[in-house]
């Protein structure tokens, strides 16, 4: 059997000269969970280097990038598994962010700025972790309600539906003065989020997303993505499976929103609009929509490029003169990268595949993987 499966190399091109024999149960688990393990290690290294050696500006940029990464992983859970492009998830991020504000701003600020809050929320203040998780749950509940309508649609109609959802939420929060201060800035969220705080959230979410994708629920959602008719004939409740992935991903994105609120300490409805929608979507497209590795890699690449182009926009001193990109160079740069990806690698940098254990020497890893699914 091991001989005949060698034809597999098209799917997993990385075969290494080094083979690490995984004998212990622990190593078998590491192999089975390799994509999230790999990315946890990569992110740990990046965070460690920048937090220990980078300047404060770079550290802030990193945290911002990690929040986007969490959003992109959330997007992947829905888009990657259900195959429906969503333009609405930044709405869940906004719901999460404002949920965090309702829970953690000090009572005096809340009384002054958002008098519409119910008495209980008005007078109580909740710890950071509670705020993040409950905000995620709030977004999940909204997803459950809106999704039970939206998920009945398929394909492009569903995508347009999610876009409408974003617009509705955006306009609603913009005018909901007693709860959100409307177009004014909401202040007073405790600043808790930095890169070290982001890391455990991202790691847990990556493992969760990977587990979901391999579970019977994830498989069912992917089956409905590949072939709706056949999946129904196999007994898959297509709407239900889509809804499940929608709710899970909204939970993740809602948490990312809360973390975002605790990162800036201030919130405006304005920041949850189309620019953020498109930058996070482009991260997913560049990386590869149908794999966790794609979501993470795409976020890292685009964030790094974005930061590099920003530096170029600021410019370098060469002797007496300053060489700089014209303003807007970042957006143009991302646009060009998107085009290149869409032309030459339509399935993204990872070609929609996960990055598997590269040191394979025996079939043990495969059996470990197959037991998982």
């Amino acid at each position: 059997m091991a001989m005949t499966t060698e034809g597999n190399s098209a799917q997993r091109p990385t075969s290494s000269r080094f083979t690490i024999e995984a004998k212990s149960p622990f190593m078998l688990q590491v192999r089975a969970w390799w994509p999230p393990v790999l990315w946890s290690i990569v992110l740990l290294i990046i965070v460690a280097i920048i937090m220990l050696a980078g300047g404060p500006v770079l550290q802030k940029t990193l945290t911002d990038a990690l929040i986007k990464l969490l959003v992109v992983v959330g997007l992947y859970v829905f888009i990657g598994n259900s195959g429906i492009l969503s333009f609405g998830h930044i709405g869940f991020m906004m719901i999460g962010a404002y949920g965090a504000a309702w829970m953690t701003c000090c009572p005096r600020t809340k009384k002054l700025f958002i008098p519409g809050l119910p008495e209980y929320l008005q007078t109580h203040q909740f710890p950071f972790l509670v705020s993040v998780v409950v905000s995620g749950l709030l977004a999940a509940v909204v997803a459950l309600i809106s999704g039970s309508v939206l998920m009945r649609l398929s394909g492009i109609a569903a995508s347009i539906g999610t876009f409408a959802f974003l617009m509705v939420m955006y306009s609603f929060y913009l005018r909901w003065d007693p709860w959100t201060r409307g177009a004014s800035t909401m202040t007073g969220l405790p600043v808790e989020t930095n890169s070290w705080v982001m890391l455990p959230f991202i790691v847990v979410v990556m493992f969760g997303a990977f587990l979901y994708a391999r579970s019977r629920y994830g498989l069912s959602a992917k089956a409905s993505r590949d072939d709706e008719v056949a999946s129904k004939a196999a007994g898959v409740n297509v709407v239900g499976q889509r809804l499940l992935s929608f709710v899970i991903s909204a939970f993740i994105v809602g948490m990312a929103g809360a973390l975002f609120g605790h990162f800036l300490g201030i919130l405006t409805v304005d920041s949850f609009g189309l620019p953020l929608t498109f930058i996070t979507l482009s991260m997913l497209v560049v990386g590869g929509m149908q794999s966790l590795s794609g979501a993470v890699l795409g976020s890292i690449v685009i964030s790094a490029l974005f930061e590099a182009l920003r530096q170029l926009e600021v410019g370098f001193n060469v002797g007496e003169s300053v060489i700089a990109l014209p303003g807007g160079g970042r957006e143009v740069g991302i646009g060009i990268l998107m085009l290149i990806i869409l032309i030459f690698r339509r399935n993204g940098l990872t070609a929609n595949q996960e990055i598997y254990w590269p040191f394979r020497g025996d079939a043990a890893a495969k059996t470990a993987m197959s037991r998982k699914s």
Partner: protein
Amino acid sequence: MLLKVDNITVHYGRLAAVRNVSVEVNEGEIVCIVGPNGAGKSTTLLTISGILSPTEGTVTFSDRNITGMNPENVARMGISQVPEGRHVFTSLNVEENLRIGTRMRRDRAEIERDFQMVLEMFPVLGERKRQPAGKLSGGEQQMLVIGRALLTRPRLMTIDEPSLGLAPKIVDRVYEVLTDLRNRIGLTLLIVEQSSERALKAADRIHVLRSGQIQLSGNAADLRDGEKVKQAYFGFTEGVKHEGEVAF
């Protein structure tokens, strides 16, 4: 009687694709519906599996009326459908495709046994367990879809044109497998097919469908010479009645 399709009429918009069609399938039987393009064969199957609803008539499965039930629930009742054109889940690998078939079941030990049975029946699926199903050949995909349907432990399996676009040798193999399934585990099969020759060989009973109506029904053994089937299929004779066993 396991399945009783009673006098159904199905419309696409204003067009009646199937008129007053009745089909019965007994436990352990292989029944074939044959007919030319556009005869309404697939429409009949889609109606049984709940994807279409009849405007008239009823579908009864093991004494329960399943007319207009949604496809997932029909599948849960034990009717497993193999749709036309080899609907594999292209981005999932072979094993994951098969796992989808078991998702409605809870009996873990039995699932493992059936899994081994399917792999034994289709060794090629075992060899390509980790390959994306989209990369399999046509015949292999047909095997995969049949395997997936089997893993739902169906009481009735409906198959739409298993021979479509396959080399004759592969078609023989598919039919071999289907008859083998009936003999080994008593699977009940309702097969839709264009090629009447193949159907006559495999089936216990056949129905000939043309222009949305049943032209001829009978035991395959009685019709084996093929003349009557040919007439009904191509419509050489006029005034064929659909209720009668053989009306000419």
